């Protein structure tokens, strides 16, 4: 079979096959090792370039105010590592409460948006119904609407429904997103129809099929959706600020705005605060990254 015939019939979800032993392997191994060094160097350079702005955030967060404003020579690390920025941040803001608010909102948003996205994504991917095209790209088009455009109208709705001043004023509008739907559909298109039809033939209803067949196959997708949802709601600030009214309900990112004063910024404290904001989500990231990176490959075939 030529490569082109294989391409036409291939599954892009096949499990990673074990490397086969073919002639010339030792020679290939040697060149592979050489190029492995080259590749490592490249990826190390790219990786360090990617992380250097974050390093800079770290350096500034631990630099004293005087050092940040004075000094014009090139220093790649602070002369004196200080915690004063963090002290200032904790003294000025109820960081623990805001952290708790952020978690509460992020968790509920994730629960709602992941489940609605899974359901809707499945419908678009595997079910037939009239108007699917129109509905789908209507949802797609809502992705482009930044909150600034609909802010005032949305605020009226939130006030009229009595949600204003509670977490729900943030949770519900933020859960209303087509991004998860889009991702879910993309993924679920790869679920083989045969599995679904087999279940249907066995007498399972649509809901049953979804719960018993589709969901178990979608674990990697669920991991990605949870991830992206946590990330975006964790970092969201424009809408929560307007919807939450009281200081005590604010979420963590709003604090960054506080530090942008009327006439200039306290960069040390800003970076310290940004660090506090990033660290929790980064930890979640790093700990759970393999669950969806490796797992995405297994797109549904057992």
């Amino acid at each position, binding site marked *: 079979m030529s490569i082109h015939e294989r391409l036409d019939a291939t599954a892009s979800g096949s499990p990673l096959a074990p490397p086969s032993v073919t002639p010339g392997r030792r020679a290939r191994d040697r060149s592979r090792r050489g190029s492995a060094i080259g590749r490592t160097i490249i990826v190390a350079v790219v990786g360090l370039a990617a992380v250097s702005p974050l390093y800079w955030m770290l350096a500034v967060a631990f630099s004293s105010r005087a050092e940040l404003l004075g000094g014009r020579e090139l220093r790649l690390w602070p002369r004196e590592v200080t915690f004063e920025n963090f002290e200032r941040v904790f003294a000025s803001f109820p960081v623990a409460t805001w*952290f*708790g608010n952020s978690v509460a909102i992020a968790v509920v948003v994730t629960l709602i948006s992941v489940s609605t996205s899974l359901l809707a994504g499945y419908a678009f991917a595997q079910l037939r119904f009239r108007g699917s095209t129109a509905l789908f790209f209507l949802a797609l088009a809502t992705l482009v609407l930044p909150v600034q455009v609909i802010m005032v109208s949305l605020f009226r709705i939130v006030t009229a429904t009595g949600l204003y001043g509670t977490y729900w004023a943030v949770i519900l509008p933020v859960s209303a997103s087509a991004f998860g739907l889009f991702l879910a559909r993309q993924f679920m298109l790869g679920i083989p129809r045969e599995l679904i039809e087999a279940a249907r033939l066995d007498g399972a209803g649509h809901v049953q099929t979804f719960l018993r067949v589709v969901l178990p196959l979608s674990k990697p997708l669920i991991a990605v959706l949870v991830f992206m949802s946590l990330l975006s709601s964790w970092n969201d600030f424009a809408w929560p600020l307007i919807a939450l009214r009281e*200081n005590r309900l604010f979420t963590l990112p*709003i604090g960054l705005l506080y530090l942008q004063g009327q006439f*200039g910024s306290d960069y040390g404290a800003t970076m310290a605060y940004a660090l506090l904001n990033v660290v929790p989500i980064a930890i979640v990231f790093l700990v759970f990254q393999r669950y969806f990176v490796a797992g995405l490959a297994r797109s549904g075939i057992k």
Partner: protein
Amino acid sequence: MPVTRRSFLAGSGALALPFLLASCGFVQTAPAEKRQGTLTFTTWGTDAELAGFRAAIAAFEAANEGSTVELNAVPYEQMFTNIDAQLQAGNPPDIFRVPYYTFGAYAGRGQLLDLKPLLSADRQAQFTPQAWAAVQNGDGTFGLPHHTDTSAILVNLDLFRQAGIDASEIPTSPENAWTWDQLDALGERLRAGLPADRWPWAYNWQGNGVTRWLSLLFQSDGAFLESDQKTPAIDSDAAREAVAFSSSFFTKNYVPANNTIASSSYAAESWFSQSVAMVWSGAFQIPDADTTADFEWTATYAPRNVRAGSDFGGNALVATANTQQPELAAAFLEFVTDAAPMRDFCRAASLLPTRGDLLNDQLEFDVRPELAPVFAGQASLVQPQDVAQVASPSMSAILPVLKEQLDLAFTGAQDAATTVTNLQSGIGAATGG
């Protein structure tokens, strides 16, 4: 990952902990009707300012049995987006703080409570005329001026010495403030005496601080609006002179190239980092300067041309038109602008009072008290007719016109005459007059 019982409990515990830290935000805690005797007060502020507000609130609550003022501190950046949305949806706070250049936008659109019938008879006389002018709209008084600030010049004495300029040349009274010619000559000497990576000065006109450019216009005895707050009045030789003078800062390399209006770096930062020898600045920077600047510095008066002129910065306190407690709101505003609360607030926050009985040589700052007379003196140079223009309801529409045209002049894209012509038509379009 197999979910063992232990890991599940640990996970739930870890997940539950942050919830314990959270506020009870899932249910409404504030009743829809506000309690009788409660005012909501939304403001931004530095730590010192918020502390000052809290102290004043505590005193008010103690003096007025049964009344409560709830302070809600929000970030400055988004303050007015939120206020706007709240006003439009019908649930704004009772009281909020507003810069004088934004005041007109709300007053001119009927969003604020007219305090005239509610104030005590002698209240007007207690404020300086320029402060009172800042809160008028039509026939009504729609707020009380809480504090002001104006820009004087902070001088890095170390850099002056380096450029061969003696500290004795720095003006010590408003009468011998530098004239524009003298300032230009000073700029030349600084330019010659400083290395290439430093500049003579930076001007604090970034973002909404563009109102500080107006000081130069006023110093030439120009205006940008007639007394009706609508008709543009900027097409004048005075304006052309002001534009040409400020543009020359860039062509003569007196200011860093990114000292434009749209810059994301504020002028004060370049002064702190010793990129510039002088900076126009309000008094509120003094506490920061004291802790951060590791060089010797002082303050002096802003320049003068045909006359002295300065910007009336600072903020007023206003009540919203549909507040449920107009009398209580007015009482609170009066209380906060009484002599003792205002003095304490301004002293701690390094701002200038708006009361005549405080803006004199009795003015005290906690930090660098010897500089208080400079700022008090500078503030006394502000003319009421200059202030009244900034209180125009169209000021928020005028600001973008100023920002855009001035930056075009500063970057050399257009000359002073064209800039002023464009300003005239732009301001006219903004006011509809």
